[in-house]
């Protein structure tokens, strides 16, 4: 039982990261119909930016994170701008275009930061909490709190601000949105920027948890994307539930199948998606596929 709970907790903290990654995927897909395969690499860049600001310039962690979010937001805008001619035209080609961006981002990271990567010390120095024999890292709690806050803020932004409502409107009906005076292109760019910002948040948080290196984007991106699909692509609650689901699934397969964990994780994912292609909350977006 204790192993079960401890594994579960471990899964939850990585799950929170996957959820953030999935949120970025879903937000961009929901607002502009783009599947951004370079999202994982943007996460990686975000992780590097955050850890670089945190480690070498000795900025406070929160400030380093904010700068990283700004940096990746800019990258997001660039990707959107370059691929804009393909929007609403060729879905598959756009997808491949983002893969190309991912390849470039990874190589650029190697050129700037080297291939080996670096460990990021825990920014929350307090020791782990001991609850009923379970060890809970304080940093895990911080990650969960920040991820929750980010999700709440995102939902608040979409539900309660004019810009957020407009972004959703664009996603639902871009022509009607145009008719009420919304600049669709700008709205898309902001969505992409937000998605990239979420990526940096995920990357910055995952740095101290794991390790920062140029290939980290691949694993996080694929798991995060799987999480988004599992939850229902384009759905905000779906991204969060899917993220935790993949995180916990990952933790338990790592426990039970050890080296074979990836095999089991992806087989389970494939079977679930075959049975329910729309994911858990995904009824609304299925016609886009």
């Amino acid at each position, binding site marked *: 039982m204790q192993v079960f709970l401890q594994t579960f907790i471990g899964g939850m903290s990585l799950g929170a990261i996957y959820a953030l990654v999935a949120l970025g995927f879903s937000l961009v897909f929901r607002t502009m119909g783009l599947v951004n395969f370079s999202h994982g690499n943007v996460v990686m860049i975000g992780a590097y930016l955050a850890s670089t600001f945190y480690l070498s310039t000795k900025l406070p962690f929160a400030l380093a994170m904010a700068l990283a979010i700004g940096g990746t937001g800019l990258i997001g805008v660039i990707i959107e701008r370059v691929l804009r001619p393909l929007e609403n035209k060729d879905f598959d080609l756009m997808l*491949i275009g983002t893969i190309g*961006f991912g390849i*470039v981002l990874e190589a650029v990271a190697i*050129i700037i930061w080297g*291939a080996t990567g670096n460990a990021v010390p825990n920014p929350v120095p307090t020791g782990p909490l001991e609850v009923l024999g379970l060890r809970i890292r304080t940093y895990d709690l911080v990650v969960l709190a920040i991820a929750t806050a980010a999700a709440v803020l995102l939902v608040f932004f979409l539900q309660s601000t004019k810009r957020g409502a407009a972004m959703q409107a664009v996603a639902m009906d871009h022509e009607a949105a145009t008719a009420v005076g919304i600049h669709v292109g700008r709205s898309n760019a902001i969505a992409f920027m937000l998605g990239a910002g979420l990526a940096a948040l995920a990357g910055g948080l995952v740095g101290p948890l794991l390790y920062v290196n140029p290939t980290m984007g691949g694993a996080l991106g694929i798991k995060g994307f799987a999480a988004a699909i599992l939850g229902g692509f384009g759905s905000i609650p779906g991204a969060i539930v899917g993220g935790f689901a993949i995180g916990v699934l990952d933790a338990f397969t790592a426990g039970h199948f050890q080296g074979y964990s990836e*095999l089991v994780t*992806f087989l389970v994912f494939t079977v679930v998606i075959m049975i329910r292609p729309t994911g858990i909350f995904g009824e609304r977006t299925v016609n886009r*596929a």
Partner: protein
Amino acid sequence: MKLRVAGIGVLAVLAWLLPYQLDSYLIHVANVVILFAILAIGLGLVMGIAGQINLAQIALFGVASYATAILTTRAGFGFWTAAALAMLIVAAIGLLIGTPALRMQSHYLGIVTLGLALALTNWVTNAHIAGGAEGITGIPAPTLPGIDLRNDYFFYYLELIVFALALAFGLFVVRTPLGRKMRAMRDDSLAAGAVGVEVPQLRMTAFFLASIYGGVAGVLYAGLIRYVAPETFSIANMFLLLAMVIIGGRQSLVGCVVGAVALSLLREVLVDYPTYAQVAYGTIVVLTVVFAPTGLAGLPVRARGLLQRLGWLRRDTGAPPKLGDFRPYDEVERPAEQVILRIDDVSMHFRGLKALQEVTMEITSGEIRGVVGPNGSGKTTLFNVVSGLYRPTSGRVWLGERDLTAARPHTLARAGVARTFQNLRLFPLLTVRENLLVALDQTSVLGSWRYALWQPGVWRHDRALRRQADELLDRFGLTAFADAAPGELPYGTQRRVEIARAMARHPRLLLLDEPAAGLNGEEVRQLSEIVRSIRSTGVTVVLIEHNMGLVMSLCERVTVFASGRVIADGTPAEVARAPQVVEAYLGDSAMSEDVPVATATEATR
């Protein structure tokens, strides 16, 4: 044509003489390049030709290499026996990886195939039998009598011959019925189903073909390198292969090969700077998708277009080809009247929207039935139910004596239902002739075994289809446009191509969805002539139409829809008088009172 044969000959000779120019390292590089070229052809087939995103191609390659390695080193099989078994295994795995394609497409398929590829890599990294991360060493070199295949130079010739066969077979597939169906499915899977293409089976066939190419490359890899390890089949290499196909031009197999060669050479040149090579090819991928989506293979066409725009190259100034006259079918005796289509209490709901409500209709063989009604009254939904695109919420659809309520579009097409679409769904990247050829081919995808065992049969079949296509083109006056892309044709001509394509199925029941939309007066007149002639061959025609003049003059019976229900049914004159019809159209029941009695014979325009 002569030029092409000569070109191929020169290339073949050059390829044959190439080793004389290469040192022992470069010949090895050439061998690896050929492997990538074979892999790229496979990916081009499944992705560029059949439109299925397959991010597991490199994993299939790995499966075959590993199978060969395991069977030779662990089970003691000879190389060629192991290779044959490996091909069986990779084909099975290919079909397994393709299964999700039956349920999902596009990015969903991308992530699932990517996930399965990762799962396979994960397995070989762990499994004791696969040697774990250290891989399997000591794979015996393949032997051929009298030739030492351990020598990279001789291996080159083996690969060259296999490659030539692989490319020739790929091109053969693309240009014959199987490949045409795949391209049709890629361009528009809905319309492909409607002309009888068995989309699910075809998707599996595409994955099967990809796995064969992956398998051939994998077996050769095992024989060439004689060592396998997980890194070789990594996602990074998958993306590299993808880049080759995209840069070369995914819709052209030759383009895929060119891309594979070009990118391999680029990588070789930058071998000491792999990171910069990565920047370079990633950038090229992005630039390609944005600025040259057809890749290197599409450049000649684009260049010609550019030169023409700049005025450096003369445009074809010959008179634009003209739409010929329709040559009427020979009349046949009208068959005994029977109910050919029975729609029985069909309802269709879309999450709260009731598009069809308890619709019941009977259509008698040999009639021309008009279906009219205001926008959004459910007419096209009805067509979609009858042609199998929608599964009705309740009710049944009978074709003659067969209950075809939940049948797939291709089943209905094969049962004799053909249709056209309101917004034209021609296959844009196929020529007009090819559009017809896809529909003309009545053979099943399962008959594709002939491709492996009896190619002359396939060839003869294709020749026969081409003769039929020529006949059909001539009948519909489309001969001048046979090799044009549909998108370049005038709208009215496209409409006619779509009708010709539907007729290529030799249907019993023809559904025309707004065939006169966008046509001018003369074209409408020709249309009504065509429809009459089609009916005279015993085909039953149902048409949705807004051009009431056409409906009134052409149809014997008219069914009127409003808000998803049938509100009137009868001769044109009868329904035009019916108050509920006038109200549905004009909004005023009072206005129906002073409607004069209609004469249904006169064509207004």
